[in-house]
């Protein structure tokens, strides 16, 4: 049995369904991210696990115990908020020790535990400071320590890095992941930042409009997106219109040029239109070799970004962007040049969802 089980959960506000049929089993010690745009239902789902919202339908079980209608202060969860939510009237040490005091732990236990948490987040010298005296990154680390001090069953993080600047975000997400692995605590992490989700998670739940679009590990989500939304939301994507030549063998035609894919074209009639996609990093300039694909087009734009040169190639009504590394010995192509782009059959993704007109 999974450690955290969210079964058939739905949340409706009046006439609006914000979370539809959410089913997820999380193993003990697993790090799962809920990834999606604003308003997709990821925070609402997290809040239902925390107990701040009640599911309209469905159950939530933690370690075999049904907590669906249990108040938050009886679930033994730890939560980290986007706005840090440190108690302004308490020092760092008091903030971290708050949960332990509420649980009526003896002072002899609280002191060492607080010290342990301060050492864990590498801020032992800030024990007597108040939240307003800390930077954003420090505040969030204290918030994390506070959430972990009570040894919660589940750690919930609601976009904890959103309010921080880019550099701090990168270092802090590594710290969070390191801590989580060291403590082996089951964790749910809500974010709209795909880079965070991809770099930190054991599994990702991609959500859109209250629905679970796909659940998988980062490699699967990125390389094998099962829906158009996942393909477009996670990573950059070139979407092209293709005509199916032979669904059984995966042959397609893009602007009259034949290509092939190893992805499934099941359900597509020969001659019908499908949306296919290419990641920019899967495409390069060159000539066809072996069983790979090649398309001929015209350079529409060349962008020099320092270490990267971004090239946009027009292929009939389609456009493909690709990135190449800048090299001082190689002159970038010019606008209007005719070029050939190459990619493998595996890299040509076939998108689900409504077909282009």
């Amino acid at each position, binding site marked *: 049995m999974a450690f955290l089980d969210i079964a058939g959960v739905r949340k409706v506000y009046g006439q609006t369904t914000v979370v539809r049929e959410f089913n997820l089993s999380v193993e003990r010690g697993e790090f799962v991210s809920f990834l999606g745009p604003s308003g997709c239902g990821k925070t609402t789902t997290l809040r239902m696990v925390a107990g*701040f919202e009640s599911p309209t339908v469905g159950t939530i079980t933690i370690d075999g115990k049904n907590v669906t209608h249990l*108040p938050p*202060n009886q679930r033994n969860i730890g939560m980290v*908020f986007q706005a840090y939510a440190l*108690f*302004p009237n308490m020092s760092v040490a008091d903030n971290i020790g708050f949960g332990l005091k509420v649980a009526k732990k003896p002072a002899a236990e609280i002191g060492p535990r607080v010290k342990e948490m301060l050492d864990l987040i590498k801020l032992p010298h800030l024990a007597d400071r108040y939240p*307003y*005296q800390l930077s954003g990154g420090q505040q969030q680390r204290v918030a994390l320590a506070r*959430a972990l001090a009570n040894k919660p069953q589940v750690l919930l993080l609601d976009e904890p890095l959103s309010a921080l600047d880019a550099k701090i975000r990168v270092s802090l997400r590594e710290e969070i992941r390191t801590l989580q692995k060291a403590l082996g605590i089951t964790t749910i992490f809500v974010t709209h930042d795909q880079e965070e989700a991809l770099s930190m998670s054991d599994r990702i739940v991609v959500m859109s409009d209250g629905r679970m679009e796909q659940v998988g590990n980062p490699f699967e989500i990125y390389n094998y997106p099962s829906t158009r939304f996942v393909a477009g939301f996670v990573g950059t994507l070139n979407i092209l219109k293709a005509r199916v030549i032979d669904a059984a063998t995966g042959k397609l035609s893009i602007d009259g040029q034949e290509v092939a894919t190893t992805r499934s074209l099941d359900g597509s009639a020969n001659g019908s239109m499908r949306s296919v996609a290419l990641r920019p990093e899967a495409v390069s300039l060159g000539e066809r070799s072996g069983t790979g694909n090649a398309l001929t087009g015209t350079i529409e734009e060349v962008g020099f970004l320092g270490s990267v040169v971004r090239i946009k190639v027009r292929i009939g009504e389609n456009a493909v962007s690709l990135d190449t590394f800048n090299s001082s010995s190689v002159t970038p192509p010019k606008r209007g040049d005719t070029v050939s782009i190459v990619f493998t059959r595996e890299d040509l993704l076939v998108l689900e969802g409504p077909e282009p007109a």
Partner: protein
Amino acid sequence: MKAERFGPWLAMVLGTLYFVVPLIATFEFSLRKRRGEYSFDAYRAVFADTRFIESFGYSTMIALITILVGVLLVVPTAYVIRLRLPRIRPVVEFITLLPLVIPAIVIVFGYLRLYNSSSFLPMTASTRATDLLLVFAYVVLSMPYMYRAVDTGLRAIDVKTLTEAAESLGASWWTILFKIILPNVRVAVLSGAFLTFAIVIGEFTMASLLNRPAFGPYLQNVGANSAYEPSALAVIAFVVTWACMGLMQLFGSGARGASGTR
């Protein structure tokens, strides 16, 4: 001075004179008890009067109890409304403004009708019960100020997220209220408390009609029977009020650092 600044400065000077001149005149009159020279004889007479000490002490005690009851009533109410019932905030705000509209004498006559010695709850038949009635009346009278002060204080903190953070750590509502919310609105509560104190110290109608030995009736009594002492008492009352305002300012800036807020 530039032409556009002259108007505001003139208004400020005239306004200041309007308030300050009568005060100066009152103070000057209070120094005239000894014929032919200025002296503090009127003040000495006031401070030597046991009734002054008794009435001031009584009003101070009633004020403190009023503040305590007011805080225990208003802080949880404002907190619950802000957290759970934001839609009824306009209704509650209207209710808290009613004491400014309804005269104190109306409240007192209502008390006398409801709680007189022949009624089902004869609170006015007992001294302590009447003191309690006075406290409740003052809580109502100071409600506009206390509620507004506390509500402003709650607006300055993220009540919802702090509450959820505390709940996630296992805290009950009482713990959240007394360990998180109240300390973080301490400055606002103190503002309301000092305003309440100033109101209660000088209040006359309710204390007089309920026949309690408060400072307000004492002021009126001295005014009816003496010449210079009432002026001295008026100055003392102003000083007490200004001291409350000063303490509000002091705690407003000083307490912020201690509570860890900017």
